């Protein structure tokens, strides 16, 4: 039988062939617990009656939503996490290093072929290195922490094939937004999105992360890219037979195949207040903007900051527009500092904040009020996500975000 990449990963782990619809129990390579869910997860773990975690080395605690803390109760999460880590011997704790989804691959945890779960829906991101990863609730996470396994229904796979070279100014963000628009916000529910084709091969791992990160916005269980030499280099592992075998079989069966030509993509934005409400930027130009947010696990990486800096070099943001830049991790911050990117952004008038979830989770980093308009590079524009329900959120690529900051309105 021929298999898609996800079916292969599951098959490898359970030691027998699997097919979509099978309900299987899989061993878990990585558990990611973030600060916002830590307290609840730990509570459930103890309620379940476990006395130890299945493997402390495979558990990673990351504090990112509450950093910087904005309310007096926020730091309770840190203390709860610290106490749990100490009690059960968990060494992998990132207290101030950046956003969880950035760190899970950047800090060397998740590798091609792994199975990872996290207490956050954007856990799907790690598909960028050819791993299966998905978000779950804290109760289920508590179960995994105790048992090391979870049941899962093997998903059907939608194949997204993109061939050719993207036009200047078009990024992987424009690609994934368009795909979500075509699939709709529920079009891939329960299914895996497999991204392939020469366009995806040409992308950096960072660009692929933007795509897999947003797979969940089409409802997908996971998004996945085929690991290659770039992946091996990013993960700091040899490009060997094991990785080469992590690819879908020729003739594997898909529930759907979407085929795109790279040159057909244009800059787009997801308009208020649904992620699948996609329009070309050309239709939106002239829309006045109050704030621009460059950051998040979707688009807070070095190449994203560099793309914005290329637009803004030697220029200033429009007056009375707030331009907020939140690097995804300490490493990204440092790299952008050392290659001059942050200096360009600062001189352009950016407010450069500490790495963390920032505005994307709506608790800090530039929350807005009624009738304000924000162009943001993150992954969700839901009603009320960044302030009141009358805030208008447009999701865009770093390039388009930088242009909006420069001109104070959406600009092609």
């Amino acid at each position, binding site marked *: 039988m021929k298999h898609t990449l996800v079916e292969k990963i599951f098959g490898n782990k359970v030691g027998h062939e699997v097919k979509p619809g099978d309900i299987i129990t899989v061993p878990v390579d990585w558990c990611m617990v973030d600060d916002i869910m830590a307290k*609840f997860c730990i509570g459930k773990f103890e309620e*379940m009656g476990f006395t130890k975690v299945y493997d402390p080395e495979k558990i990673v605690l990351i504090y990112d939503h509450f950093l910087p803390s904005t309310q007096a109760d*926020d730091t309770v999460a840190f203390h709860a996490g610290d106490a749990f880590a100490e009690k059960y011997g968990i060494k992998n704790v990132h207290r101030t290093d950046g956003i969880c989804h950035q760190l899970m691959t950047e800090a060397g945890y998740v590798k091609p072929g792994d199975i990872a779960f996290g207490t956050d829906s954007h856990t799907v991101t790690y598909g960028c290195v050819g791993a299966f990863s998905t*978000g779950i609730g804290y*109760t289920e996470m508590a179960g995994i922490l105790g048992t090391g396994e979870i049941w899962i229904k093997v998903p059907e796979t939608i194949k997204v094939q993109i061939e050719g070279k993207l036009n200047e100014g078009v990024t992987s963000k424009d690609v994934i937004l368009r795909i979500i628009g075509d699939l709709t916000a*529920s079009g891939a529910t329960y299914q895996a999105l497999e991204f392939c084709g020469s366009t995806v091969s040409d992308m950096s791992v960072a660009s692929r992360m933007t795509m897999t990160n947003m797979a969940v916005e089409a409802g997908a269980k996971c998004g996945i890219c085929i690991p290659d030499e770039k992946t091996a280099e990013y993960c700091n592992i040899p490009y060997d037979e094991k990785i080469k075998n992590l690819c879908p079989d020729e003739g594997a069966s898909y529930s759907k195949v979407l085929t795109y030509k790279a040159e057909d993509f244009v800059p787009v934005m997801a308009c208020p207040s649904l992620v699948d409400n996609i329009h070309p930027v050309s239709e939106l130009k002239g829309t006045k903007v109050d704030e621009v947010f460059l950051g998040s696990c979707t688009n807070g990486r070095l190449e994203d900051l560099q793309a914005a800096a290329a637009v803004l070099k030697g220029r200033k943001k429009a007056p009375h527009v707030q331009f907020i830049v939140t690097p995804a991790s300490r490493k990204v911050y440092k790299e952008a500092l050392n290659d001059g990117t942050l200096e360009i952004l600062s001189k352009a008038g950016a407010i450069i904040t500490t790495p963390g979830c920032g505005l994307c989770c*709506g608790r800090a980093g530039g929350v807005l009020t009624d009738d304000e308009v924000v162009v943001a590079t993150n992954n969700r524009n839901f009603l009320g996500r960044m302030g009141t*329900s009358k805030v208008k959120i447009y999701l865009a690529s770093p390039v388009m975000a930088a242009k909006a900051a420069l001109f104070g309105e959406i600009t092609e």
Partner: protein
Amino acid sequence: MSETFKAKIWKLDDDIDTDIVLPTEYLALKTVEDMKPYAFSPLRPELAAQIKPGDMIVAGKNFGCGSSREQAPEVVKALGVSCIVAQSFARIFFRNAINNGLLLIENPDLHDAVKEGDEALVTPGEKIVVNGKEFPIASLPENLMEILNAGGLVKAMRKRNGLD
């Protein structure tokens, strides 16, 4: 799980995301009880106070899309909602609901056939009757029924650990 119950319908549309079910700013509140008043607040601020124990929610497609916050199904359950019937559910919400013992039912037709305030007779795994019309419903896979029957995942795990 197969006893028939009566429930008043609150009607919502497609793509009810988890930021609507419970906005991020309330996630850090100490208990689910504290969160209850803010359920559905971005969309219908008055709804949480109107829902009475035993009522049901009927929605369109993709209910619960968005984040993995388990507070979403928890807060709905805490409001006393007996079940949610939707054309489809987002997957994380679906798992979280089952893990917390909240009954979810998929049905393609009910949403367009009822209006808010209607009363429904629900027989889990069998049918829903509203305004004299019958809507057949499927039962859940066996492994999920096990969790539901145990009263949620925590109870199932306690059992496994020899505690209950």
